[in-house]
């Protein structure tokens, strides 16, 4: 909501779960690739990094996507 700007919280960190399920065999960090995909989808600046706008979007209540592939 429009208000007096507060100091941005530079200490926000992104807690990542199950990064290890992706095999990292060189090339781009798969998490960065996923973040870019997400940022592109939501019209955010595509940085591949968990910047504040990205974190804010990630924290919104949302529909979960079932991990069908692993379930199968």
């Amino acid at each position, binding site marked *: *909501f*429009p*208000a007096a700007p507060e100091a941005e919280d530079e200490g926000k960190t992104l807690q990542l779960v199950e990064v290890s399920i992706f095999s990292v065999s060189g090339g781009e960090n798969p998490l960065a690739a996923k973040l870019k995909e997400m940022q592109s*989808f*939501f*019209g955010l600046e595509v940085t591949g990094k968990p910047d504040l706008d990205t974190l804010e*979007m990630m*924290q*919104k*209540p*949302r*529909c*979960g*996507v*079932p*991990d*069908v592939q*692993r*379930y199968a």
Partner: protein
Amino acid sequence: FTPGNPKWKRNNLTYRILNYTPKMRRADVDEAIRKALNVWSNVTPLTFQRVEDKVADIMISFAYRDHRDNSPFDGPNGQLAHAFQPGEGIGGDVHMDEEEAWTKDGTGYNLFIVLAHELGHSLGLSHSNDPGALMYPTYSYTDPNEFRLPQDDIDGIQAIYGRSNTAVQPTGPVTPEACDPNLTFDSITTLRGEIFFFKGRYMLRKHPERTETELNFISLFWPRLPSGIQAAYENVETDEITIFKEDKYWVIRGYDVLPGYPKPIYRFGLPKTVKRVNAAYNDEATGKTFFFVADRYWRYDEKKKSMDHGYPRKIVSDFGNIGRVDAAFQKDGYVYFFHGTTQFQFDPRAKRIVRKMKSTSWFSC
């Protein structure tokens, strides 16, 4: 669409409610599910029949944390629900996070809205990046009584299952785009240095120091306000905005609609022949508010709380040929009037129009 384009091979589908959340009455849960299914059956040839004691195509349940589908829920907020694409077994099933505050109104998370979204997945739709679409991934509240399936969702589901069998094809609201050259506004107001442009269910928000324009639902800030706001103005002194629709008005301070609202617009001193206000703006310097109705305008004294004498006056007499005023606001000493896709910059000191622009001039198109 969901990768692989899964779809049900037949149009007559079954659903079963496996359990209920204790947070709502069973009848209200049943109603939310029925209405959510109607969202999709109203625009396609699909039909849904409830079954009780056998396996259905779409099994709906409330689940807690790890519920053995490799996609555990996460407690309150965060992920609200998920659903599986069409198919056998778990295909088509809907799981709702039991730990959410499910409601039938604007508090917590509206069950009908989330169910309707998840059922879209059950039928084969993936997520849309249209922020106004039902299939957009993040939650936003719409009054279920006012809900209309957006055109983006209609196009998506009809691409899978075809059009409705009704003679008159249903259509839905389209999300406004800031740089659409045909964009017009219902109303505009300043708010703490920003400018809010209202259009249907939406507000476009422009901060003077940011190039991008934000598009949000009005309900994001004010779930109690109606869509289609017809006039709005800010009173900087009281830090309030006043919102008009038809013969009612609301006063808002921050996130809150002040108690006792809506009230009739006639409290301002407008005659009963006035059925709606087209536009309004407040002059911070004088404390006067200007109401525009058809080809006339009134001037209201916010300090005295009464209409000034000698009004209404003809708009053309004092503001020039700006036509019908759709929206207006004052900023940095100028008044901006909107008529369709045209915007006029009016200098109240010179008492004349000094510039004519497109309605989208504020959006850095």
